[in-house]
């Protein structure tokens, strides 16, 4: 099965019943699969006029209680930034898939990149936090899409599957379970205000149509949902809570693999470059090479770096010009070496072996 199809199947398995999208290479197979499958499952597929509208429709659908998703690539992702901020501000659970391609601008529509890793974290204006997952296989296109819906609903936050052209278009064997576990949104308790958070910082959810008269606004608002745009305290409380509900759950959300924690030279990867590192480690079994492979990149699990107590250097192969290097750098004292590659091709094992020899 192709990665993009596996992503769509993961969404359906997780209970996604609304897809709003706009065709864009290399993500289009996700929309095509949803267009074919959703109507037969009682769901709604709608091709919107642009990506501004796609994410808007997804947020609207989410407020009726539906699990909702859109999928895009760089140019469409840029258009979505406005309403991604709205989803963060209004705590709307939704899943956004970005099958990354070479940028900036129209760039390389059919080649892979990981150039939107900072955009997904910081792309909309203002302070907020999100969750971003990075699959490295067709199986993970399924598994992490399911997980994205789970996290989106638990934390009421826009959640990103930051895929790329490689995992989107490759075909591999995938195992689809009969059923998957997805936590439901916690309902808004009787007597609670619609934006009154529990201890975890997440308010209960009251979808439209229950008579709860929820007012949802992208303006700074109080626990009732009413605009309160001039009180500095109201803004401070709201925005700090939106950030804290994700950042303080970093350990809970984290998903990573540690190989050879005693190693001195440590690769830090996410997405397809992790497979090149795994190949190198299989080809040259060597305890002095460690590997931290992230499945969740945001919120960044800085504690995972501490597991490499003997590390002397961190090497970061990324399909960009070192976007995550600074995030790693600010948590460690050792040098962090970017192994940047742009142009659309994955690092080869030989390239990483050369880097190993140069930096150890």
């Amino acid at each position, binding site marked *: 099965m192709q990665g993009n199809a596996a992503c769509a199947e993961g969404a359906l398995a997780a209970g996604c019943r609304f897809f709003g999208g706009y065709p864009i*290479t*290399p993500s289009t197979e996700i929309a095509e699969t949803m267009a074919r499958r959703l109507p037969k499952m009682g769901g709604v597929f709608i091709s919107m006029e642009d990506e501004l509208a796609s994410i808007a429709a997804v947020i609207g659908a989410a407020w009726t209680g539906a699990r909702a998703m859109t999928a895009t690539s760089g140019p469409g992702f840029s258009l979505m930034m406005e309403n991604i901020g709205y989803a963060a501000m209004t705590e709307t659970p939704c899943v956004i898939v970005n099958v990354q391609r070479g940028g900036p601008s129209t760039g390389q*529509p*059919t080649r892979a990149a990981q150039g939107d890793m900072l955009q997904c974290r910081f792309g909309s204006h203002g302070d907020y936090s999100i969750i971003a997952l990075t699959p490295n*296989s067709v199986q993970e296109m399924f598994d992490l899409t399911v997980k994205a819906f789970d996290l989106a609903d638990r934390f009421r936050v826009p959640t990103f599957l930051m895929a790329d*052209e*490689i995992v989107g*278009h*490759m*075909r*591999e*064997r995938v195992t689809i379970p009969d059923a998957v576990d997805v936590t439901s949104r916690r309902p808004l308790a009787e007597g609670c205000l619609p934006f009154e958070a529990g201890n975890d910082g997440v308010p209960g959810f009251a979808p439209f149509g229950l008579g709860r008269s929820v007012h949802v606004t992208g303006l700074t608002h109080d626990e009732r949902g009413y605009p309160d745009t001039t009180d500095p305290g109201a803004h401070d409380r709201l925005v700090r809570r939106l950030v804290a509900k994700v950042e303080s759950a970093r350990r809970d959300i984290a998903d990573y693999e540690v190989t050879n924690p005693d190693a001195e030279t440590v690769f830090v990867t996410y997405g*397809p470059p992790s*497979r*090149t590192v*795994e*190949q190198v480690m*299989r080809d040259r079994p060597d305890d002095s090479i460690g590997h931290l492979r992230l499945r969740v990149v945001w919120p960044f699990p800085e504690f995972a770096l501490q597991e490499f107590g003997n590390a002397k250097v961190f090497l970061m192969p990324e399909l960009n010009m070192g976007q995550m290097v600074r995030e790693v750098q600010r948590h460690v004292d050792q040098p962090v070496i970017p192994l940047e590659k742009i142009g659309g*091709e*994955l690092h*080869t*094992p*030989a390239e990483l072996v050369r880097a190993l020899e140069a930096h150890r």
Partner: protein
Amino acid sequence: MRHEVRFSGYGGQGIILSAVILGRAAALYDDKYAVQTQVYGPEARGGASMGQVVIDDAPILYPEVADPDIYVIMSQQGFEKYGVRARPDAVMVLDADLVRSRPACRHHEVPATAEAKENLGREIVANIVMIGALVAATGIVSREAIERAVLDSVPRGTEDLNLRALKRGFELGERACNL
């Protein structure tokens, strides 16, 4: 053992589908691991089209094809773009009528398009003939597996035609090897 198989030809020959069928045979019916990738884009509909498969007994880590050991080439342009640098110990199956050049490595000439057009009556199944020849010449997957994968992948109503094409490919592959 890791094998890297590269298919190339021109758009419309079913090059990428061939790679998908081979990957499916390995991953679903031969209990191996496979990763299929392709060059995706406008050139797939005009110039040289390319699809490739990694097949291994162990889980595949590095998913791309770096240096294929097996080639299936169905056009001169495909040969020039994707086949001409084949390493000396590679094996190439090529459509003898559509590829003028010959590689330095071991190669088998299979008149797949002529066979499809003249004896099977449909040029469109030339890629299936090539797949049959590939399997006969290399044993990269079992004949049972490729047969099931072909049946999974072709439009309903064309199963018999495609099976005949596949079997004809087996014969042509055997013949080419015995030369």
